[in-house]
């Protein structure tokens, strides 16, 4: 397993440091109300630098997915603020939030990422179509080549393997050159070889395409591809490891009780 060095993009022509790609400030998320309420996040503050690859780890139920949903604007926090780049998304009305998500955020989910009725190429360019943006074919070609599915774009999703489908989902996440790509257990349903390829693609997106990547995982191997691993436990931050390796991750996780 190779451990790659994070490559942080240099700030260009600016005295003040650029805002972090993702900035969570004291975020609380409570589901339900009254006695049945569940506090999924109990005040999380987190900054994720631009062009970095961050893994979020924690035991099952610790709030990883919730954190990602809030950071990606798929859900709104009960309190606290979420900003992407210089935009504070936690207060945006639904219409603007939708537009922001479409144009500035990429997603890769564990499953059901692609619409079966569309070809791979159509799936990849769907966010552009929804936003009425033209497809930059050079960038499209570059993205599909770099994720290794250039020959498959005319196929339908169900004609692809699980790993190929996830790589198509990564291509779709990258095609809009978003502010950040969020991936929730993207390798959860894959065999280890496909998983390695998908993780390599995410790593490559951060390193070579200067893309901010945030990945939720509970797999130490997957997390070891990241520049930094942030740990969550019971809805709260529980430490982090920079330039992680599998052994340290596993040890930290054991401490958290998993």
């Amino acid at each position, binding site marked *: 397993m190779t451990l790659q060095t994070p490559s942080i993009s240099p700030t260009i022509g600016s005295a003040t440091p650029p805002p972090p790609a993702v900035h969570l400030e004291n975020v609380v998320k409570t589901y339900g109300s009254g006695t049945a309420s569940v506090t999924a996040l109990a005040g999380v503050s987190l900054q994720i630098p631009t062009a970095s690859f961050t893994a979020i780890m924690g035991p099952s139920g610790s709030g990883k997915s919730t954190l990602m949903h809030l950071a990606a604007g798929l859900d709104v926090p009960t309190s606290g603020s979420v900003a992407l780049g210089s935009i504070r998304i936690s207060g945006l009305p639904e219409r603007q939030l939708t537009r922001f998500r479409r*144009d500035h955020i990429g997603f890769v989910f564990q499953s*059901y990422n692609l619409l*079966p009725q569309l070809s791979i190429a159509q799936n990849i360019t769907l966010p552009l179509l929804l936003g009425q943006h033209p497809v930059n074919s050079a960038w499209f070609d570059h993205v599909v080549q770099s994720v290794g599915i250039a020959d498959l774009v005319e196929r339908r999703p*169900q004609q692809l393997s699980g790993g190929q489908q996830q790589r198509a989902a990564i291509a779709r996440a990258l095609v809009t050159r978003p502010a950040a790509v969020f991936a929730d257990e993207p390798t959860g349903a894959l065999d280890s070889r496909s998983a390695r390829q998908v993780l390599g693609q995410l790593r490559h997106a951060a390193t070579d395409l200067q893309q901010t990547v945030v990945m939720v995982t509970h797999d130490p191997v997957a997390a070891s591809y990241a520049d930094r691993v942030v740990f969550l436990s019971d809805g709260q931050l529980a430490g982090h490891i920079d330039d992680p390796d599998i052994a340290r991750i596993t040890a930290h996780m054991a401490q958290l009780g998993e």
Partner: protein
Amino acid sequence: MWTLARASIAHHRRSFAGVIVAVLLASALSTALGVLVESGLRGGVPVERLAGADVVVGAPQSKPVPEDVPVPFSERALLDDDTVDAVAAVPGVNRAIADVEVPLTAGDGIKISAHPWAAAALTPSALTAGESPAAADQVVVDSSLGAEPGDRIELAHGGVPATYTVSGIVDLIGSADAASLAYLSPQAIGALWPHAGSVALIGVIADEGTDAAALSAAIADRVPGVVTYVGAARGDVESLAGVNARTNLIALSGSLAGVALIIAMFVVASTLSLSIAQRRRDFALLRAVGTSPRQLRGIIVRETALVSTIAAVIGALPGYALAQLLADQFAVGGVIPADFALAFSPLAGIAAVALTVGTAALAAIVSARGPSKAPPIEALVQSRIETPQLNRGRVITGLSLIITGVVASLLPLVIRGEAALAGPASAALLITVGAALIGPRIVEWSLTFAGPVLRRLRVAPGVLADANARSFTRRLSTAIIPLALGITLAIVQLFVPATVSAEAATQHAEGTTADYIVTSPAGGIAPELGTQVAAIDGVDAVTPVIRSNVIVATGDPDSEFSMVQPKPIQGIDPAASGKTLDLAVTDGSLAKLADPDTVALGSNQAFELGAHVGDSVDLTLGDGTPLTARVVAIYDRGLGFGAVTIDADALRPHTTTGLADHLLVSGTGDAVAGEITALGLSLTDASDLGAAGAGDAAQQSWASVIALLVILGFIALAVVNTLVMATTERRDEFALLRRLGATPGQVTVMTFLESGLISVLAVVLGTVITLPPLIGIAFGLTGQPIPVFPPIVYGMLAGSTLLLGILSIVLPTRSALRAPLVSAV
């Protein structure tokens, strides 16, 4: 296994709700139709006027048809005078009272049924004032007229008024809405009754202690050629309306119940297969964890049986209420009398439950074959588009049905008459079933036109809608076919009668060459009024027109193609026919109708009978009298004037009232019209009068419209149900689109476009399917291949189909969009 089934039902609430709704509705509809069919056999009007008779004796009132229901006579069949004595001679008979019936009208248009005074004994009533009518100008009336003994009242018979003195008043006991009754002296009623030597019925008062049923059997045994009625059956002979209502109900059930049942079963089957398809992944998972295909089929069939039995039983109850609702509407339209009692028995409900549960179970067995044999690996496939391949057998069957339907539609090009019209009528159904089988193909094919339009919109919803339509041709066709079926059914049921009646009206208007059409406000016209009109200065020709029915048997009676049907017949004065009517005679001459035992035939009727001028034909007149007559003329305007034309003098004795329907008068001079109206008659025109049989046709079509509305309502609910079911299942798809940045508006526009596509295709398909049959029918009737499409009705049909299709997709889309974005992650 039951535990599993229960858990599965709980998990797929929406899908099962869809199945429950479909089964419930189908069960309600089938129950309602079952009640109507059963009432066609066993329902009737209650006995009122003859409730005081222990036994009622009449002549046979219908023509038996081998292996089919008898065809009732439209006129009263009469008994010979001698029969009264023969009945009176049967031991146990205390009194045998002859009864006749004469329609009278009081000055203010109130219809009164007049009977001999003796017949008052047959009605539960009491003479509360005055005395019985002894003289010819005396009358006893019932209290509803509000007259007093000694009052002088004018009662008209066939437009001829006479003044009577009220000699007494009877109070009717317990008959609320019976027609007003009048009793005349024997000599007075004898003068008005047109059938001297015959009586309408005989009411029997039994000796004390004699059992009515036994007496009835004894009379039937001793007196030849009579039919006896006891108990509730007396209602059938009291008025012919009850029997006619039963015939109408049977005719209606015959034409609609079959179609409705097919549709109901089709809906249950397709909803069920949709629900099973939606749970394909669950089934694959069960297979993956080791359930055998056999066990899986067991699970599916068992849960279907459980759910559909409950739904069908619950649905049967409102079915009875629906039947009563339908019957009330039929009564409003005059198809059945208001007091017609339906035959409610558990049978209809039981049959409906058995039928719907059976269909559901069968559909489950068929639909379960796929998932139970599918490889367990399917469970791991996240989602898939439907296999667009249709199996060859299905395509071939579908195409053959469509071709057969089109060929049957063209039958009227080769043969003529009603036999030919039966082809196109059933053709629409064949074509629809064929279209249902190759539905996905039709959707694909039509997308080659619609697709480019959608894609040219160059917006996400258009592209997505096109992709969805292309990938889910089955889903689309499941929605399109029932909608199209509804349109087809409505067009055939509404526009075929429209084509027929439009042609009949045209023929009638063109063929009426008389200057005046004369009717009586009282209803019928007595012969002497015809003579008076003929005597008016300036009148050249008068013919009474008597309208009745004749029973015609066509085809080899032993073969399957034989038909025994009532057809309209008109009686005219052959001498005056040339100046008043143009029936478009193609062979022979109407003047020859003056010869005894002759008829003229409409050309379609002649074709059906294979008769030519000079041939002899066998007919049964309206009162059941057989007639063997020589054909003296053949005419083209049979639809407008009746299939058979005969001398009025020959027809009159075979009608109950002996009155003419209207007079056709040719004459010149300004005074003619004034003198006609001075006789108390009115003038009308051909369109107000209507073609022969137009009244019956209008009643029948009213009934069909009511029944049609119920079926269309069922289809509408079923379509909404299916579309809501299918759309609700797309939550995951909508959520993914939303996560990727589609606005709710974009998703809604996408489904709007899809639903628009579905609805427009349904309207187009439903219309196109009906074209061959309608063209065939129009050609058969008019010789022109141009069907009548009433634009407003068609517009309403198409409009409501569009609205229904679009709303039942767009509304559930909106509600599915309310689900949180990440619930499916």
